[in-house]
């Protein structure tokens, strides 16, 4: 054995570790021959002895009893908290499950009720009823289940249908009147206006004069469109248009429809009774 290989096993030799018996004998033989390695082994053995003595002296060292007491108290506290958490967690799980079940039942009941009350007029006229509760997309989609079928549903929704029909008629009448007035003021559009007038439903309870032009200037641009505005004015205004006045009712007011163009100018007027 040389000094290098002696150095590689000197720790195990000094610490009296389990090692190959032949290598151990060879190392001791080298130490007897080599003064340097012998001194080195002596130092290492002295260190080992010192460390063993230090370890032996400190063997009785241990933590104070208060550390154990604190740890046991902490362990108990931790277990108690874990038990509370477990109980609370179980209660919470049940509460969540019950809430979800309740929500599902409520939603199912509401959906059933909506299907039963599905209005027939909605599918027929394409007008959504104002008072119909809308839940999700199912009640607004025209499905076979909620479309019109049978007299029973029509009877049940007759009131709503009549109101919707009246509203539609009013809108159509206004459109027709606007077109008619426009046709009177623009002769080239007259045919179109009249054809539209023929298509319109003549549902009226009013008696009206023809539209009387308010502007006679030839410089005005063609009227592209406008609105009919219902106004009230004194009956004396009839005289300005050459219409007869009932003197007994001269103090009363009279209704009139004024055609107002998109440019904001009043183009024509008619009187309504």
């Amino acid at each position, binding site marked *: 054995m040389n000094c290098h290989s002696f150095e590689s096993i000197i720790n195990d030799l000094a610490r009296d570790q389990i090692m190959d018996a032949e290598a151990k004998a060879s190392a001791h033989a080298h130490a007897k021959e080599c003064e340097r390695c012998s001194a080195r082994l002596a*130092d290492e053995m002295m260190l080992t002895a*010192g460390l063993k003595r230090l370890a032996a002296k400190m063997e009785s*060292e241990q933590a104070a009893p208060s550390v154990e007491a604190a740890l046991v108290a902490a362990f108990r506290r931790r*277990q108690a908290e874990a038990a509370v958490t477990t109980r609370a967690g179980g209660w919470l799980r049940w509460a969540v499950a019950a809430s979800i079940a309740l929500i599902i039942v409520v939603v199912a009941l509401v959906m059933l009720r909506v299907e039963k009350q599905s209005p027939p007029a909605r599918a027929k006229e394409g007008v959504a009823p104002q008072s119909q509760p809308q839940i999700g997309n199912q009640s607004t989609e025209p499905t076979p289940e909620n479309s019109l079928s049978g007299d029973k549903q029509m009877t049940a929704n007759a009131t709503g249908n009549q109101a919707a029909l009246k509203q539609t008629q009013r809108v159509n009448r206004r459109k027709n009147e606007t077109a008619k007035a426009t046709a009177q003021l623009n002769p080239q559009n007259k045919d179109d206006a009249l054809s539209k007038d023929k298509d319109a439903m003549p549902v009226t309870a009013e008696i009206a004069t023809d539209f009387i032009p308010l502007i006679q200037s030839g410089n005005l641009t063609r009227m592209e469109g406008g609105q009919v505005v219902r106004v009230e004015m004194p009956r004396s205004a009839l005289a300005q248009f050459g219409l007869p006045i009932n003197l007994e009712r001269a103090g009363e007011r009279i209704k009139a429809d004024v055609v107002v163009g998109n440019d904001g100018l009043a183009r024509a007027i008619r009187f309504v009774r």
Partner: protein
Amino acid sequence: MPATPSDGDLLRLIGNGDEAAFTELYRRRQSGVYRFALQMSGSRAIAEDITQEVFMILMRDAGRFDPARGSVAAYLYGIARNLVLRRFERERVYVPMTEATEEADALATNLIAPGDPLGDLTRGEMVETVRNAVLALPAHYREVIVLCELNELSYADAAAAIGCAVGTVRSRLHRARALLVEKLRATNEDRASQAISPARCFA
């Protein structure tokens, strides 16, 4: 279960909330953890704090122990080592060899066993010198001395506690012992020179 449950059995019981198992494992392993922290830091207060923290972590993370990576003792030493090193970084607690604190003096006094005054004094001085030399080592050398020499862990357990290869433990131990020998020799030479100084004055 056998009459004396293993550390692993106790750990499993601790995970199930068994207080008796926790107490049993604490009493079985606390002294080793405490000594390791004391030998690494040189402070009883720090050693007690570390011991308490180690077992607090154990009761919280008992399920994280992996038997494939080492013994329960190595696992505990590993936790203690990490806590000690973290403490060093936070508080920079280094115990210089030449500046003995009151606590170190008290510890040295406790380490001297009563008996033959001359023999005990010599033995006590040696023990104190070795202790100071160990405390003066760099931490990565100190820990292998403390684990393998003072607490007699195997190389494998020391490697598991430190988190390195067995070969690394062997090489660090070799280097650490060489450093200790140098320090002890230097200390002995200083004492020898101090012992002959008065003679020179009278000459």
